[in-house]
């Protein structure tokens, strides 16, 4: 089922003419001319669309909150920071279907009463930024953006802002700080951005994929969308599949596909002669699943139920050659590097966790270190200021729980990984 990826295989897909061929910019005039802002919000509520940035918050509710705040101006921010390791699905939309994002933002603007939009795009996507800028210019020329859109009296302006490479700036409040020219660090919540966002004014922050889902919902109706996927998590989802599979890539599938189906039917299965060992279903910050969990459905609720999370839908698949201690080490190094440094547990704790993993990998670990790791990780999880710290320890905790023997091998002085490498050659 192709909703989000309906346009990407067209020649010159990013061009406005390619977009217009397939009902592009039909939803926007319909919303502007035929619907009241509340009706647009209601339609999104009917669709039960949940945010694709990681937290899965209902988009309609978020818009509703922002629309109820009477202060002006308001802002729509498209979160295109896509920083979670293993995630590359927003990039596909940005580069191949930028107008779907712009149309979604304009509709969101109309719904909540915002006249300004920002696209905060990660600095590592220079091509995407240029494509978006060109698309904005195209849309302005045809009056889909800018002043008095299609003579409706509605104004909506979009500006592209390039990030400077910090993962934390994908977190919506840190993003806003960064957009305001400050150091990218999360803010205290509440108040939430819907009331106190950019310049302390009402602001909706939505992920690229969330916004790209909007125009189809307005076009076909919320009920149509709500019937796709699972009841709690409707719609299609872009899964970024990476790792030891035959065909890594972005797959659009109805929410709730099982890990097994995704890996073995869509991504071509494991590499030759290799068997599935584990997968991180929601990027680096999710808890890993092992072989026994291949039939878990990849949606917000099902993954939460097994102690992991869907996050941005970045499925990182590992086969039997993977050394889970090294995997945990690599991932924690990422978070240690990306910790913004604001709060004590994340800043100091990740430094500590990494040092302990260093020691284990260097053969200086003890069994007590595993309990220490779990205790320190729990400290980080339960006391960190923001989601980064909270989720950062998932790869360590989940690998210790599910692959403790690999840690023990290091502690005892034998390397599982080494032995399996020997086997392979």
């Amino acid at each position, binding site marked *: 089922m192709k909703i989000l990826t309906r346009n990407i295989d067209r020649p010159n897909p990013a061009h406005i003419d390619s977009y217009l061929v397939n009902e592009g910019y039909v939803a926007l005039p319909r919303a502007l001319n035929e619907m009241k802002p509340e009706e647009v919000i209601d339609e999104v509520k009917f669709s039960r669309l949940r945010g694709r940035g990681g937290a899965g918050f209902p988009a309609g509710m978020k818009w509703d909150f922002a629309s109820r705040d009477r202060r002006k101006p308001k802002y729509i921010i498209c979160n295109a920071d896509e920083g979670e390791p293993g995630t590359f699905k927003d990039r596909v939309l940005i580069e191949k279907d930028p107008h779907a994002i712009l149309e979604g933002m304009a509709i969101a603007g109309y719904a909540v009463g915002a006249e300004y939009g920002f696209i905060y795009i990660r600095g590592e996507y220079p091509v995407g930024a240029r494509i978006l800028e060109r698309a904005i210019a195209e849309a302005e020329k045809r009056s889909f953006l800018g002043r008095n859109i299609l003579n409706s009296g509605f104004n909506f302006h979009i500006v592209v802002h390039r990030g400077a490479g*910090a993962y*934390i700036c994908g977190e919506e409040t840190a993003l806003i700080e960064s957009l305001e020219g400050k*150091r990218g660090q999360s803010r*205290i919540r509440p108040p939430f951005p819907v009331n106190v966002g950019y310049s302390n004014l009402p602001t909706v922050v939505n992920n690229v994929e969330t916004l790209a889902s909007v125009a189809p919902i307005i076009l076909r109706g919320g009920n149509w969308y709500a019937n796709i996927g699972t009841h709690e998590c409707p719609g299609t989802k872009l899964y970024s599949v990476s790792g030891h599979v035959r065909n890594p890539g972005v797959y659009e599938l109805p929410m709730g596909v099982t890990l097994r189906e995704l890996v073995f039917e869509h991504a071509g299965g494991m590499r030759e002669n290799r068997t599935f060992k584990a997968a991180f279903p929601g990027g680096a910050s999710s808890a890993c699943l092992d072989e026994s969990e291949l039939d878990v459905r990849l949606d917000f609720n099902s993954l939460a139920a097994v102690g992991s999370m869907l996050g941005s839908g970045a499925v990182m698949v590992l086969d039997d050659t993977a050394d889970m201690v090294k995997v945990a080490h690599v991932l924690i190094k990422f978070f*240690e*590097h*990306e*910790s*913004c*440094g*604001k*709060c*004590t*547990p994340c*800043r*100091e*704790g*990740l*430094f*500590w966790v990494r*040092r302990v993993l*260093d*020691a284990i990998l260097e053969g200086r670990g003890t069994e007590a270190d595993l309990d*220490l790791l779990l205790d320190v990780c729990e*400290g980080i999880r*339960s*006391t*960190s*200021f923001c989601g980064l710290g909270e989720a950062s320890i998932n790869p360590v905790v989940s690998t210790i729980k599910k692959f403790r023997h690999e840690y023990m091998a290091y502690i005892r002085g034998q390397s599982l990984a080494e032995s399996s490498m020997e086997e392979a050659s």
Partner: protein
Amino acid sequence: MVRLTIDGSQIMVDGNLKVLDAAKKLGIHIPTFCDHPRLSELGACRMCLVEVEGMGKLQTACTLAVADGMVVLTDTPRVEHARKMMLEFLLINHPLECTVCDASGECTLQDFAFKYGSAETRFRGEKRVLRDHIISPLIDRNLNRCIQCKRCVRICDEIQGVTALGMSYRGAATVVGPFMDKDLDCEYCSHCIWSCPVGAITSRAMKQKVRTWELEKAEAICPFCSCGCTLLYNTRNNIVHRVTHAEGRGVNQGSLCSKGYFGYDIINHPDRITSPLVRDPEGSLRTATWDEALDTVAGRLSQILEESGGESIGGIATDRLTNEELFLFQKLFRVGFASNNIDIPSGVWSRAVLPVLEERLGVFAATNSMDELNYVNALLLIGCDITVASPIAGLKVKHAIQRGGLVTEITPKGTALSRLAKRSLVVSLGKELAFVKGLIKVVLEEGLYDEKAVGGHKRFSNLEFSVKGRDLKTIARDLDLTVDDIADTAREFASAQKASVVFGETAALQPGGQDLINALIDLMILTGKLGQEGCGLYPVITNTNFQGAVDMGVDPGRLPGHVPADSPSVRKHLEKIWKAKLPKAKGMNALEMIQAASDGSLKALYLVGVNPVASFPGGSGVTEALEKLDFLVVQELFLTETALRADVVLPAVSTAEKNGTLTSMERRIQRTQRAIEGVGHSMPDWRIFSQLGTACGKEVMKYVNAAEVLEEIAEVVPYYSGVSHRILADNGLQWPFSKEDAREIYHEGYLGTRHLLGDGLPSDKQRFAAVENWETISPDADFPMTLVLGDLLFHSGTFTRYSESLNKLASEATLFMNPQTGIGLDVPEGSAVRAISAQGEFSVRVAYAEELAPGVLFIPRHFANAPAGTLMVSTREGGTETAVVRVRVVKA
């Protein structure tokens, strides 16, 4: 109001509070690092975690708003574990060098680790070590001790408005420091030092000099400016080792400036004079006993009095002295020497500026309180670099700006506020008047005046007539401003509910300063901005106890309480109490005294804390005049250029070494208390005056302590009637006050009169001056430039020259000029020039400063290398301080 339960105790609190505040009210201590009552919330350290019923995760008490029915637990195993964990986290990378850390003993991390931490660490391995370097001569940073609480960063930004500090890099590599880790370039207000909960930002001035727990603290009033800040002298073995702030106390509420915080090293400076000196027959100064010195002074002065009369004896005292001392000084002269020849160096303010306020408004001081500046909606700052002239008032203006107050600055020179103010208009000296008249014009033309206030004014048409001569466009063009600059300022000012005017010395002390003040008063009357909260007229006079000196009658023409010296009734009253005949004729002012010394009619001069050789107008003529005197007494802390020429030198003490009261720029009478005994054989000035008076045979000069002097002040000085230590209590009292009210309710927070003119302007004052002039300085072909003599943020008169710390921040004068001016004169930056006035000249190096108006020069007045004060032209009012001098600059 909401009701919540914390550890089983219920409490009703304001719904805007945080759980931390509510717990505090219940006396429940929750440990915190990053929270600070004066700063925005951050929630970063996670030390204050508590359990809240119904919330899964632990919550930070400092950020969690109270809610009705909330149940909070601060004392559970989970909370205890979290605290242990936070401390363990913080300590893994902490250097644990308490042995050499100056914060040891008052370090929050040390205290909490002891109280809540675990005795063991589970961390093995190497600590993170960050590369560090020295960022400033006075402020030490130690990155490895930093716990990233951002209190320093926030206080520098939110309270001081400077933003000199920030955080760079991420995660465990995060470092705090100046932009790009360059040298610290800031106001040195010290906020960052004392807000740091650990020893990561410390004062280099006390580095490893003393352990904090050995220090005793004594509250006193800062001696360096008229803000009247409360501070704590930290002493050990009769040495002041540092100053600390007194959180939440006094007008400054804990804030200080660079002088207040770092200037204390003057007190125990090795060059202090520790015993009296008397010139021996061979002509050199030698040590003497107090008896000998005082007998010499009393003997010589009595002799001169007998031979030549009181008119031949004069005295000039610094307005840094306490009220008691200033009172005794004038009493000594009037009673002991029958002389009205008494003055302070800043007499020009009391003779040229305050009389304008007295005549127009009937007040002899700033009309409103400093604190009201915090809340103004519109403010006109004219010729006043308020951050420098009055640092704490400046802070309040910064806070007004943060609250959305619209500040318009009219200045010949960019200031620390230029960046923050709504508009900073660089206007050449002498043209400010045209700007103010432009405002009046807009108010009149647009009908923005206050009908009620203007209703009965007789000279309304005169005011209209006085601004007819030029249209707004011409005014704007001449000032190099836009019409909107003037019109918008006028509209904002007129429409603001709380609008005030602050003017400083470059406005008031220029040749036609009175016209400017009159025009400002016209503007305020016209717009109805007098006589209410937030609407005030503030002359900013930096000198510490200027107001006290004027109130005490250290003036050749006024008795205590601003009463003219020839007032028969008051003289009679005083004569009865003082058992002496008081001189009737007006005495000489400071400059007239120097003049009289030079022509031989003044025989003896008694200088207290003033250094005319370095700072009086007249150049070498001053030295020559002093040499002609029969007898020169200098009462001082240091052997200044002037003291070296004295016949007797009397060692006095600093504020830290004496008791007394001071009156701040907002008429606040405050107590200051002794922190250490006088250094060596030095004595408080009041005691010296008293003993000298007694030695001259005046029993009425006998006092056992300063409190006894205050009792007399309470009896004879109007506005101070009924003052006593008891009613001054904690925060002092703003005159005028009702002594009954003060006695009855002082403990309930009676603080005197916040603003004068509380009942509005008296009807006989309801008229306009309608100034005819448009300029206050007329061109002078021989001296085409105007030189502004001003203060630097880091110094106070010539007194702070003796602070080694402050000298590290600035110790030499350069002549600042706009690059355009420099190029015009063909003097490149760094080249030497001669600045020449009608009175004298000196050479100095040039520095360029973009923020100066063309043709305007600026020089700090503090330093010996360029005694700019000596260039000044004596004004007709006889002040020795003026802010503006006409000069010509030539290549040296």
